[in-house]
């Protein structure tokens, strides 16, 4: 009897749920205050002229947006161009390379597991460590790549500057980005490939499909949702990437290949005109949001098409 009463009491206690809501609130408050609130605050703050060290705030209206799109349109376009190049190179090279490597490493043998682990390794290094290493590889005078090519007596090496043109600089930095991060798409894609059932592949083989046909007719469509989800991630990381541009690029004198994110970062570090930085943030916010929306809609469409 007493046990039954006890049980009811516990059930009652179990049903009282409001206290769990209260327990979450401090964490939620911390998250919203320190992480979410600043991201939204850029909207009002882009209308003022202000700096972090003084308390004077002067209302400027849309002044900074006008600056960006009228007087400084050349710079704005240059940064936008660099960012688009960065995303394009990153997307094109990383998608193809990671897909090929994932196909090559698909079988779950010991050999492949070791190489998968090895390709993932740079992901645990700090971007500082990677940037410093690659800055030495690319160094025009004393760098390793120049020295190696010089040994092979290729014309123009050593002394070749890898950063002399915009697109070359961006490409070189994107290569570093891929070198550091390719473990991620490879891991996702191999695990995706391994979920395609062996029976389907077997059936296609019995029906007389060769490797090429079964790739395009089975593997590719089944992997499309995963690949799209990855590409969403690639595009947004590409658009926000500043680490390697800031750290490798700071070694050379020309700064003409800064992406939008790198300009923002350097601005926070060096300038005091925070209103104009906020305006840049707002533009980037909308661009990223639109990117995500497009990719999301594409993803939904493909998933519907593939899964019926």
């Amino acid at each position, binding site marked *: 009897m007493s046990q039954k009463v006890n049980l009811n009491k*516990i059930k009652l206690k179990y049903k009282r*749920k409001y206290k769990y809501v209260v327990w979450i609130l401090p964490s939620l408050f911390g998250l919203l205050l320190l992480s979410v609130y600043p991201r939204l605050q850029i909207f009002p703050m882009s209308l003022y002229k202000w700096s972090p060290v003084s308390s004077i705030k002067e209302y400027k209206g849309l002044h900074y947006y006008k600056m960006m799109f009228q007087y400084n349109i050349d710079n704005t376009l240059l940064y936008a161009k660099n960012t688009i190049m960065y995303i394009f190179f990153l997307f094109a090279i990383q998608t193809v390379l990671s897909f090929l490597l994932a196909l090559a490493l698909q079988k779950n043998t010991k050999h492949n597991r070791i190489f998968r682990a090895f390709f993932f390794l740079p992901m645990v290094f*700090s971007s500082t460590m990677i940037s410093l*290493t690659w800055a*030495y590889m690319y160094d025009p005078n004393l760098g390793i790549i120049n020295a190696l090519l010089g040994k092979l007596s290729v014309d123009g090496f050593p002394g070749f500057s890898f950063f002399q043109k915009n697109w070359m600089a961006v490409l070189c930095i994107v290569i570093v980005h891929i070198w550091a991060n390719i473990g991620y798409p490879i891991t996702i894609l191999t695990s995706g490939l391994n979920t395609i059932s062996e029976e389907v592949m077997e059936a296609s083989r019995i029906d007389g499909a060769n490797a090429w046909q079964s790739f395009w007719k089975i593997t590719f469509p089944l992997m499309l949702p995963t690949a799209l989800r990855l590409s969403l991630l690639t595009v947004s990381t590409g658009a926000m990437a500043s680490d390697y541009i800031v750290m490798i690029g700071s070694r050379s004198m020309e700064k003409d290949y800064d992406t939008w994110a790198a300009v923002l970062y350097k601005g926070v570090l060096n300038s005091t005109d925070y209103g104009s930085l906020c305006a840049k943030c707002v533009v980037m916010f909308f661009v990223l949001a639109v990117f995500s929306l497009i990719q999301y809609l594409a993803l939904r469409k493909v998933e519907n098409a593939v899964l019926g």
Partner: protein
Amino acid sequence: MKNNRQKTKKTKLKSGWKPLNVLSKILIYAYALILIVPLMFAVITSFKTAEERVVDPIGLPESLQWSNYVIAWQEGSLLRATINSLIISGGGIILLMLNVILVSYCLNRIRDTKIGTALYMLILCTMFIPSVGSVTTVMLRRQLGLYNNYIGEILCSAVGITFGVFIVSGFLRTIPRDLEEAAMIDGARDGQIMFRVLVPVIKPALVTVGIFSFTGIWNACLGPMLTLRDEKLFTIPMALLLNFTGQFTVEYEKMFAGVIMTSIPIVIIYLKCQKSFTSALTGSVKG
């Protein structure tokens, strides 16, 4: 039966010599080479004298210059940086994990209610707001006194619970309610259920989240560079970036000695917990 066995033997032999297999082997080894070359030169360079490096960048050093490591440790003030990194990452990860466990546990308790779903969605939605607020974050942290000190760094890494809550509460969902109810009947309180009963069960998810978040905080460089301006507070990545570059020259051999010394612990952690890293990634995309 015999026929069958012969057949499998035949297909095995065949699959070993397909041109596709050869191609994929070539691709794998070629990429492995690209991966290993920069790392190899970082190690070789760290053992050279400055003169050897300038005269012959790709050759091997005549004798191993261990002194580079000693000088790098001192000149880069790496002891100070290591202590700072340990304080910030250690404090950050402990608070973050407690935070993640608490929030996931509570969310799991109220997951059937409307408010529970709403809170969960709210936390997940923060993932989709583009993180472009570095300007205003710096200002906010100055105002709150979380600027240029340990406590600010620790608190700000501890609030980023989104990824952790996503993984851990996903894991908690798979655990039958009976377990918690049984503990309750035995008179366990919430704290005991959380740490004595549930934590051991969801350990794989916690390890995954923990390792992943830890490397994130440990490796962060550009973010802390905005908020830690005092040289005494520099973490390892910042010390590596800022202490070895002069205005016109870079002492590469010492810098690489520093880089290698500070990378070895993280490589060891990776080799030990390699599975957790990859399962974190596959989980985050599939779920």
